[in-house]
């Protein structure tokens, strides 16, 4: 904890941003297995514990749509025009593979970090 506090804050913020960037894509794709409009998606992500700025989310949705991982359509809901996003077929395949990758990375990081933490505790 002390190491974290002593760490130069901008450097930590950059590391955190890098770490979050890939996770956000995964979370957005996972959530869009069911259809959401942008605002509802941001709320759902927030409620799920992943805070995301709207100015990050909307351009990200657009990029994922350009990559054909998402499909979107304008529709009226509550008397207002809203753009609804959902996962495309390609997005489904990509999500499955990304989730596999995520699980592998997660377990590898767990494996790699556990001995260090144990050693740290032993030292303490």
């Amino acid at each position, binding site marked *: 904890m*002390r190491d974290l*506090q*002593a760490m*130069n*804050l901008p450097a930590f913020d950059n590391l955190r941003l890098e770490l979050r960037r890939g996770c956000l894509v995964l979370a957005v794709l996972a959530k869009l297995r069911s259809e959401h*409009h*942008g*605002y*509802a998606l941001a709320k759902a992500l927030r409620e799920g514990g992943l805070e995301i700025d*709207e*100015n*990050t989310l*909307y*351009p990200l949705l*657009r*990029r994922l749509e350009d990559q054909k991982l998402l499909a979107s359509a*304008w529709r009226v809901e*509550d008397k*207002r*025009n*809203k*753009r609804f996003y959902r996962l495309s077929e390609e997005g489904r395949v990509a999500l499955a593979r990304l989730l596999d990758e995520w699980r592998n990375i997660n377990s590898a990081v767990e494996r790699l970090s556990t001995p260090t933490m144990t050693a740290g505790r032993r030292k303490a």
Partner: protein
Amino acid sequence: MKREPTNEELLDRYIHAVKLMLMLPPHKMEDIGAEVRSNLESQVEDQARVLGRELRPDEVSALLKRHGHPAKVALRYREAPARGLISPVLFPLYWFTLRAVFAIWLTIRLIVLVFAFQGASPAVSLLLALGRDVLLAAVIIPAGITLLFAGWEYLEFRFRYSERWKPEALSPVPSSFPQHPKPRPVRGIIGGIVWLVFLALALYAPSFFWVWGGRGVFSASDALYAMRFPLWLLAFFVISQSWLCYTRFATSSWLRALRIGVVAAGVALAIFLLGTGDLLIAGPKWDPSQAKPLATLNQMLAGVLTLVSILAGLPLLWEVVRMIRRWTSHSGTPHVAS
């Protein structure tokens, strides 16, 4: 009296500003504008539901302020191009090439400057020409190298040359590949002692030197003669710090400070000597037919001193900047009480 804008007008103005700053084709601008509006309207509705009333214009204004300046919002939609001009893979090589080419160019230009000192051109006009050339090179060299690397990047993106390599095609390591030489402190120390003794003798027996002895065709100028002790001290410190590099103090910060001090003193001394005019004057055995060689020698000495001052001064500046950066980053680290 000026009318305050309504909620709808505030939203309209904001969306209009975002669209203007997107700088995208009209259909994309409209699409993005509609989406940003939809999001903002949802936020307004949500807040209104929580408060149980319509939002006031100042509350909508605060919401828009939180959402961000229109330029910032527009910028996010313009980020992440499909392919950069120079990718992160090539960037270290690009940066290295840029610095190497500039350093080579500068070295050649400085050598040309040294020889130009021998000509009739006044020093001020030569230095002005150097400044102009450095400014031009600072634009032309990066532009040329960036174009070159952008072309390489494009070809790599299109044809994937880097994926076609074969390990067998790499050239074999030559048998006489230079290894890092081991430091030879003994040779350096003996050479340094001989040199210091030689210089020390000059303090008490100037006739040791053909220029300082008063027996030559040329003699040292008054300023150079007056500076002989500082010159000896400078040589002493230069040699000492190069010996210390062989000891356990090699990485200590005071040695770095000493090196900076020695270089700074050397540059200051060189500038002072350059300012005093000719460093060599006619000696007791002066022969008027030697006037031209004397002038050439003085010009060459001045050129060499200038070149050495620049070559030593630039790394010195860089070292000082690094020290300041290290110092500020160290002092900027938050202190944590244990």
